[in-house]
């Protein structure tokens, strides 16, 4: 188990959460005001509260919080002392301390520097991801839920875990740089390949036709469901057997995917009429039984009691100090590792414990208070 210090901003904050999921000790250093993640809604309980931001509660679960007035020189000493005990530091640029100072405090440290220079929406526009998201011809949109920052945090977690593995074998630390800009660019690699191979520019597809000629989201009684009608003639045959639509069944040419592509509008219209009488789960369950790839189009609220997430322990009963017993999203890795995560810490919750561990006596702490560090 490694000790990780987390001074990451939102684009990298998922990395240390993942490291907590695998049982590492993670200490998040926060300023006296608390980090900005705590100010990002929605809030649990719907009222702005530094302790109840949903992003803070999810991404900082399993971590400890050390609150310091990072402006005060005395606080830097505490940070350096803590760095001396750590295996890795994940920090967003600009770093609070000089890199040389950090490495002097701990030459065996894995220092992960996360470089980011733009707000989320602008970074997404520059990367090419914005041009892929939304409906054809309409205003392009940012992926919701700040999910691109979870994705960039994942790259940070891979870089950190790779360097930690290395350091365990060699006994040596190193500096790892992660470029958030490049992380985002990497996710448009399919468009890059299509453009550099065939000169084809990938455009937004909305919610239809992204996979096979007939694929997309269709309305049903309680929202939408998603289906990809298989490309193969056999797959189409089985599909029309199920749908029993007279127009589709009568047109033998539709057995060919290219024909289906040409007559997509008609097929989509017929399917939309057919499926609107079913509920999401009813039609998707039947499709899956027939080996037709289909899924409900969920809102997060639809997933709160999802049977698959519950059965595998992804949603796990947790006693939360503010909300009592709730089903908590443990995470895709944490649920496999079998580690319970403590609820996200209150601001500075572990101050006393961490300072004592670092060997600070009452007089030292008094000095820190007087120096404005605490």
């Amino acid at each position, binding site marked *: 188990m490694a000790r990780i210090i987390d001074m990451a901003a939102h684009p990298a904050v998922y990395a240390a959460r993942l*490291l907590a999921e695998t049982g590492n000790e993670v200490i998040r250093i926060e300023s006296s005001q608390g980090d900005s993640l705590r*100010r990002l809604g929605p809030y649990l309980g719907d009222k702005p509260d530094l302790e109840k931001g949903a992003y803070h509660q999810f991404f900082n679960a399993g971590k400890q919080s050390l609150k310091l007035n990072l402006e005060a020189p005395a606080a830097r000493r505490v940070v350096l002392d803590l760095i001396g005990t750590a295996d890795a530091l994940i920090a967003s640029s600009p770093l609070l301390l000089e890199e040389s100072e950090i490495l002097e405090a701990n030459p065996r440290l894995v220092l992960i520097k996360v470089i980011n220079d733009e707000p989320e929406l602008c970074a997404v526009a520059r*990367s090419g991801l914005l041009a892929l998201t939304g409906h054809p011809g309409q205003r392009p949109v940012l992926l*919701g839920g700040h999910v691109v920052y979870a994705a960039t945090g994942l790259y940070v977690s891979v870089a950190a875990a790779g360097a930690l593995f290395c350091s365990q074998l060699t006994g040596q630390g190193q500096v790892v740089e992660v470029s958030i800009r490049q992380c985002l660019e990497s996710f448009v690699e399919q468009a890059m390949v299509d453009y*550099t191979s065939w000169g084809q520019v990938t455009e937004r597809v909305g919610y239809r036709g992204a996979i096979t000629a007939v694929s997309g989201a269709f309305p049903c009684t309680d929202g939408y469901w998603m289906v990809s009608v298989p490309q193969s003639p056999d797959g189409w045959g089985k599909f029309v057997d199920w749908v029993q639509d007279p127009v589709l069944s009568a047109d033998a040419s539709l057995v060919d995917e290219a024909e289906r592509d040409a007559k997509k509008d008609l097929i989509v219209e017929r399917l939309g009429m057919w499926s609107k009488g079913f509920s999401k789960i009813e039609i998707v369950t039947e499709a899956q039984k027939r080996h037709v790839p289909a899924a409900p189009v969920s809102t997060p609220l639809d997933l709160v009691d999802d049977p698959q997430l519950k059965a*595998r322990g992804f949603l796990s009963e947790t006693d939360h100090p503010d909300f009592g017993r709730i089903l908590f999203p443990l995470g895709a*890795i944490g649920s496999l590792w079998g580690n319970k995560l403590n609820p996200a810490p209150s601001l500075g919750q572990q101050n006393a414990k961490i300072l004592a561990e670092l060997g600070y006596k009452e007089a030292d702490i008094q000095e820190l208070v007087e120096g404005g560090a605490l």
Partner: protein
Amino acid sequence: MNHHGQSASSNEKDGSPLAGTRVLDFTHVLAGPFCTRLLADLGADVLKVESATRPERLGSRKTSAGAAPRTREDRAPSFLNTNRSKRSITINLKTEAGRLLARRLAGMADIVVENFSASVMDRLQLGYGDLQPLNPKLIYVSMSGFGHSGPRKSWTSMNMNLQAYTGLMMVTGEEKDPPTAIANSWNDYMGGLHACFGILQALTQRAKSGQGTNIDLSQFECSVSTFGPLLLSSIVNGSTAPRLGNRSMVAAPQGVYRCEGADEWCAISVQNDEQWQAFASALGNPGWARDDRFATVQGRMDAHDELDRLIESWTSRLPKKEVQRCLKEAGVPAERMRRINEVLEGPDGAQVFHPWDDPQGGSTLTTGVPFSFSSSLLSRLRPAPVLGEHTRDALNDWLGLTEVEVRELEDQGGLV
């Protein structure tokens, strides 16, 4: 020596994090191959198990004919990009000799990765239960759509269906929008990155415990994790948080604004009051921008619809590059929407794509990794293998088989 205490493989001496680590790769399409590409970039010897009789659909340009790709040029460009820096062995898993060979290779591997539907590897007697007794240190990673347990373990999954089921389509866009997707294989990347992280942590823990492990990953759960905050708020609040479209909960105005030309746009994100002042002066301080209501972030949020119309009346008369230039010069974050051709061009174009070390067929560029290490090398961007290109080499350096033994396997039909 590799981490297994066996003979060195070719990349061991290059000082990369996973030098000497052997990955037996049964993955196909994208989530799995993307994970194993990352392992290859970190220096692992990734041996991709392919079938000459049933080549991966995406592995060949001749998809309808189903013919085996004989050269690299016969492979689809997307396959070449996803499978670069790996080696290829052909094994016929339909034969007993082929399955036996796969088990012997797994016995020498540090990591097995597969992304078949649940139960496929068990049917081939290549499940964790089959391989663990042969190799207790093995890290065995399954990355199926829904995992190997639970009521929906047999559900078929695809990227778009996961974009739907995980909530991505209903948190993206504005409140009244229909489901909104991204036109790439977003979920495959989420699955692949989680798997790679899990593998690296399992390797670290194995170095201490000496024990292997079984990682039964669910791609669905990987993507749901990335929406963890919104799921948690739905659990506690009993309602779904509003869809924000392009807006921010902490900064305003923020949006994607129409510019001159068809379907051309520029993203603007005013982070604070100081930037708002800079924004107003960049526009020449029009009367509306001096409205007191807009002086604070709360005021700008309250009047966001009105503000959007006013801003767009300015942006829509200008080319997107001009909007971007004008605002950036004033210190206001702004970026034009770039399509892929624009992402790749110019001195400020993408940094993560690199020319192939050995370009042969397909795209001229390949994806690198978005990180660098100060004292470990990352692997060169080596080309994707030709089908079965390394069958003999791998049988030799993983198993020490002689030419006679390889021929025997061929005669038994195990290597096609």
